[in-house]
């Protein structure tokens, strides 16, 4: 285990010990090496960005963290212990929630029901209790509804809570998806391009929400984003990937000055 001391960010927030650590992760699809020997850590309370040009392996990395892909080599350490081979739903139950690059909301349900699905991992009433809507099932519905309403309130989507998700515009859908992930009260929140396809105002809103989430709930956030301005402003530390390799890791300022990173983004004469 490396140090658990953490560090102090530029804006004076105390970052805690290591929450998740990727150790020498390699991911191969047949002969294609999507990720090659990458190691980095995510610390408690920080906003960690993963950036890189298209096809660098960022989304694959996120899929490994959320258990959707199994690394060919290497280990994922979570909360100080190596994580055994797990199904994605088991990873989710351990406190990892995520949003998707292409919105993956449940279109046939209302906003409220969608956000309630985020509470699934916290509900344990049996079949009979649910069928009778009595006892534990009813208590859970009400208790979890309270949590969900707080999230809805926090993300300012009260007015659409009973609207079917299919009727919402793109920007709101992204917000509902964030609400669903937040409702799970995750230890680690993964955001896959939370601002893709948004206009400036929507990006500002989303940035504010991400910072607020981190600030108020202390949620650790790992995000992938292409908008460099957003990444540099939001994140505490940045991992830069290119062609499946890690080419930079550090604070936004360090990464900005890194020659490999500049080369990857601007191209370099061969």
């Amino acid at each position, binding site marked *: 285990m490396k140090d658990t001391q953490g560090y102090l960010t530029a804006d004076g927030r105390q970052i805690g010990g290591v929450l998740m650590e990727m150790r020498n992760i390699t991911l191969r699809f047949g002969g294609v090496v999507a990720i090659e020997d990458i190691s980095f850590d995510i610390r408690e309370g920080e906003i960690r960005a993963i950036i890189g040009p298209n096809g660098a392996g960022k989304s694959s990395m996120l899929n490994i963290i959320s258990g*959707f892909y199994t690394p060919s080599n290497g280990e994922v350490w979570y909360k100080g212990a190596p994580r055994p081979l797990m*199904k994605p739903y088991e990873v989710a139950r351990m406190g990892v929630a995520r949003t998707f690059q292409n919105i993956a909301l449940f279109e046939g*349900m209302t906003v409220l029901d969608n956000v309630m699905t985020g509470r699934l991992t916290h509900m344990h009433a049996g079949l009979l209790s*649910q069928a*009778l809507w009595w006892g534990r*099932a009813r208590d859970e519905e009400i208790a979890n*509804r309270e949590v969900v309403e707080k999230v809805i309130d926090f993300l300012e989507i009260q007015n659409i809570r009973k609207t079917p998700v299919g009727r919402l515009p793109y920007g709101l859908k992204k917000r509902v998806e964030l609400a669903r*992930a937040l409702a799970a009260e995750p230890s680690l929140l993964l955001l896959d391009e939370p601002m893709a396809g948004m206009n400036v105002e929507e990006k500002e809103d989303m940035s504010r929400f991400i910072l607020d989430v981190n600030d108020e709930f202390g949620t650790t956030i790992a995000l992938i984003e292409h908008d460099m301005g957003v990444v540099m402003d939001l994140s505490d530390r940045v991992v830069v990937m290119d062609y499946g390799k890690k080419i930079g890791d550090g604070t936004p300022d360090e990464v900005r000055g890194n020659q490999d990173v500049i080369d990857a983004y601007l191209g370099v004469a061969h």
Partner: protein
Amino acid sequence: MFYRTAGQFKTSYESDQALFPVRQDAILLAVILVFAWVIFPLTASEFTFQTLLIPILIYALAAMGLNILTGYAGQLSLGTAAFMGVGAYACYKMVTLMPWLNPVVAILLSGVFSAGVGVAFGIPSLRIKGFYLAIATLAAQFFLVWLFEKWAWLYNYNASGAIQVPNLTMFGVYVAGPQADSWVQYYLVLAIVSVMTVLCINLTRGNLGRTWKATRDVDIAAELIGINLMKSKLTAFMVSSYVVGVAGALFVFMWRGAAEPNLFDIPLSFRILFIAIIGGLGSILGNYLGAILIVGLPVVLGTLPAALGIPISSSMVEHINVMMVGGLIVFFLIIEPHGLAQLWRLIREKLIIWPFPH
């Protein structure tokens, strides 16, 4: 004006999550229940009981079972009739092996057997979906009907190969078999179907219902937010087959009185699928609307021309019925994929704001 929801405030999540948060819905349901429990039984003739009231309820229950699987959990099934058969044969074996068993208990227990069989045939759903799963459930359809035919123990080695419902009494009253009165059977069916409906509504609006709908809408996202897809799909198969099995037991014991194996063949599966599609996938109310239409249409076609004095042969009626059902299915698939239930939803939305356009 009559359906105005303004002024009905909710002050707790409990009241917001109530079964009928809108008062008019509750009143409407109360009116329907009065008709179902009092007015219909008092006025209906033997013919109405046997051709409309009892079959509509039983078909609605069977469609409800299928709807849980296909409409809510998104797993297409073409084996409904076979699972009904499992319920019917299980019930038959129970009442003949244990004649002291209360018929209602036997009917409710018979669903347990079909639930078990349903889960077994639901296992392929873990690997395949859509049309391919439908074909896999067809296997259940063929296999089970074959089993009903070949396994003589199931029909107590009858020479006819069919099951005959014996006379069953409950508290001294005949409830099944040739001696049972229609109105007694109607009340029994109505009671069981009502209770099952309430249970199904609760399941589909609660946590399990959300799990099913999430599995249906985006299964990968569902798994990544913590849903065990295997558990979600298999519980859907279990609950669905239970309901369908009870419907099958009612079908034979409270309505048909006797059944041959081929009664549970594909045409019945399709009939129930049509009820669910026309009524509306992903809706509980739709099953009733669909059953009323599919069961009621041939009766109306059979009696209306005669009442109007139009000479029409009974085979013609049958042909017209088939054509109209076929046309309706195409119509609903194109115009309103969410079926009659969605039509009611739209009407209700308009009624709430009527007489204003917005």
